[in-house]
Each structure stands twice: as structure tokens, then as C-alpha cells.
């Protein structure tokens, strides 16, 4: 690899180091929870390799345990990933001119952590060549994604050693709340979260867990509206 590319790759790798601490425990937890719910190690790995999106994977497990039908599980878990379209849109000006196979690979590897690290760098240094930006992106995922696979496998393979009387069913809600709470910052965030909770509970009577989708759509609109109003006020 030519040295400017190698340098960019290594800077990406360095930027991803703080995320390494978070990915390991999350992957392990997914492995433990998925096998605890009755999946085999292979099926659990299928999720982590094919989907690579922790929140959507946990959502799928939760919904399956709630007894939601297949189509609802697929679309609700995919809805958790709608933000990926936003990531894709915001990276397109920087990476849109890379080779097709590179853009396909980048898309597969586009996770929260790689997005945050990459967009921070590209916003700071917008004029670097596309090849360097691509190298930087691949640097951000080279530790994080293999670690996601490995820690999932570890949790799935050794999770059975955990005594079954522990309240493991509650690991998923805690993991979700711990993802969301640290990023609750603005009034719009709180408004969206409140509508999401209130709406889902109020619509719990709707069939096939479909109330969650309705409440989520309403919460997105409320979040965006509150942000807009807040900006006008300021």
C-alpha cells in the first residue's frame, strides 16, 4: 500500500480504538442472549455476520420472544436501521466516487462506530483524495468488525456456562437503554423518546406488535418538529 494510504488507514484504525472497548461486551452479550433465546451458535453468527447491526439484532430477538410474526420482526428490526440511510447520504459526497466494489464493501461495513469516526475525519479534512478517504474508512472497521464477529462467537459458545436463574431476559432492555440514554441530549431527543414509549404502550392492543411501528413513526415526526421549533426559537 502506498504510504499516504497506509497512513490514512492507520489513522482510521487509531480513531476506532475507543469503540473497541464497547464492541466486545456488546457482541458477547448478543451471543449470550441469542443462544439463551434458543438459537444455535451458527444462527447467532449468521445474525452478526449477515446483519452487523447490534441494535437491530437485539430488536429482532426481543420481538421474536414477544411472539411477533416474521414480517413484523423483519420490518421493525429494519426500521431500527433506517438511520443507516442517513449515514449513507452523508458519506456519499466523500466516498461516492470510489470504485463500485469499494462502495459495496463500505456499505456492508457501515456501522455506527465507523460512520462517526469517518464523518468526523472527512468533515475536518474534506479535500483529501478519495483513495485516502476509502483507506481511512477501512481503517476504522478493521478492528471493530472482526471483534464484533469474535465476541459474538465467544458469547454464543461460552454463554451456556451462565446460570439460567439469572434475570438474563433483562439484558436486552438494559443494553438498549444504555445505548440510548447517553445520547439523550436535546429537548427533541426527549420528546421523541417520550412519544415512542407513550405511543407504544397506548397502542399495545394493536395486533402483531404493529403499535410500535406506528408509535415510532409518530416519534420521528415529533423529534424533527421539536428540533425545527427549537431552532426557530433560538
Amino acid at each position: 500500500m502506498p504510504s499516504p494510504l497506509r497512513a490514512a488507514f492507520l489513522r482510521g484504525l487509531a480513531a476506532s480504538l475507543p469503540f473497541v472497548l464497547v464492541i466486545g461486551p456488546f457482541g458477547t452479550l448478543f451471543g449470550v442472549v441469542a443462544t439463551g433465546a434458543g438459537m444455535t451458535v451458527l444462527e447467532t453468527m449468521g445474525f452478526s455476520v449477515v446483519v452487523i447491526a447490534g441494535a437491530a439484532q437485539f430488536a429482532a430477538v426481543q420481538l421474536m420472544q414477544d411472539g411477533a410474526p416474521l414480517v413484523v420482526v423483519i420490518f421493525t428490526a429494519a426500521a431500527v436501521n433506517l438511520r443507516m440511510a442517513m449515514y449513507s447520504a452523508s458519506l456519499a459526497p466523500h466516498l461516492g466516487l470510489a470504485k463500485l466494489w469499494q462502495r459495496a464493501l463500505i456499505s456492508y461495513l457501515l456501522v455506527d462506530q465507523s460512520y462517526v469516526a469517518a464523518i468526523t475525519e472527512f468533515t475536518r479534512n474534506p479535500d483529501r483524495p478519495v483513495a485516502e478517504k476509502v483507506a481511512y474508512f477501512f481503517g476504522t472497521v478493521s478492528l471493530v468488525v472482526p471483534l464484533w464477529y469474535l465476541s459474538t462467537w465467544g458469547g454464543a459458545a461460552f454463554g451456556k456456562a451462565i446460570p439460567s436463574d439469572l434475570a438474563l431476559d433483562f439484558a436486552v432492555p438494559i443494553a438498549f437503554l444504555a445505548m440510548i440514554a447517553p445520547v439523550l441530549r436535546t429537548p427533541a431527543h426527549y420528546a421523541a423518546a417520550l412519544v415512542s414509549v407513550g405511543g407504544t404502550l397506548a397502542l399495545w392492543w394493536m395486533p402483531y406488535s404493529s403499535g410500535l411501528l406506528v408509535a415510532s413513526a409518530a416519534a420521528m415526526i415529533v423529534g424533527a418538529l421539536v428540533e425545527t421549533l427549537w431552532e426557530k426559537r433560538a
Partner: protein
Amino acid sequence: MSPDQLPEIIAVKWKLWTLIVALGALTFALRFSFLGVIGARPLPPMVLRLLRYTPMAVIPGLVAPAVLWPAATGGETDPVRLAAAVMTVLAGVITRNTLASIGAGVAVLFGLPLLLG
């Protein structure tokens, strides 16, 4: 765990693999949506703004029933699980750190029953 206790989608293998492949394909489609199209025009700001709220809009609602009516207790509100959830959120908002937030929640979930004997 015997097969008849498994959630249906996990017990019926073709359903589980359909879920894995379909969720993977939809997720890839979302990730590839704009990167895949060279010279994609930027999304209208309002659409970007809506998409930005998806985690906040979906995840709290997904968790709320499991917090208030856990299946493990037959749907009856459990003070320990409720306290653990509240602690997780408080710790997350105060520390802004996911691992600290998990640690606080887990400490309450497993510590509180010990304290209460």
C-alpha cells in the same frame, strides 16, 4: 430448553434464516442507498432530520413493554427490573457512557434482590 418453549421463529428454521437474510438484505440496501448512486443529490434537510431520530423513536418503545410487563414474570411489573431500567437510564444520562450505564443497571438487577434478601 425444550423445542416447544422456543419462540416460533427460532424453532422453525426456515423462518429464522428468512429473517436473518431479509434483515441483512434490507440493512445493506439502506447502507448502499446513497453510496451506491454516484453523484447522489443530497436528501432534503427535513428527511435527514426525520431519519436522525430513528434510534430515539424506535428503541424506547421497543423496550418499554419489556420494562413494565416482563414476560419472565408473566407480565407482572417487577420492582427490581423497573429499578434496574431507571438506574440504567439515569447512569447513562449522567455519565454519557454506555458501559457505565450497563454496569449501573446490572448492579441493580442482580444487587437489589441480594439486598432485599
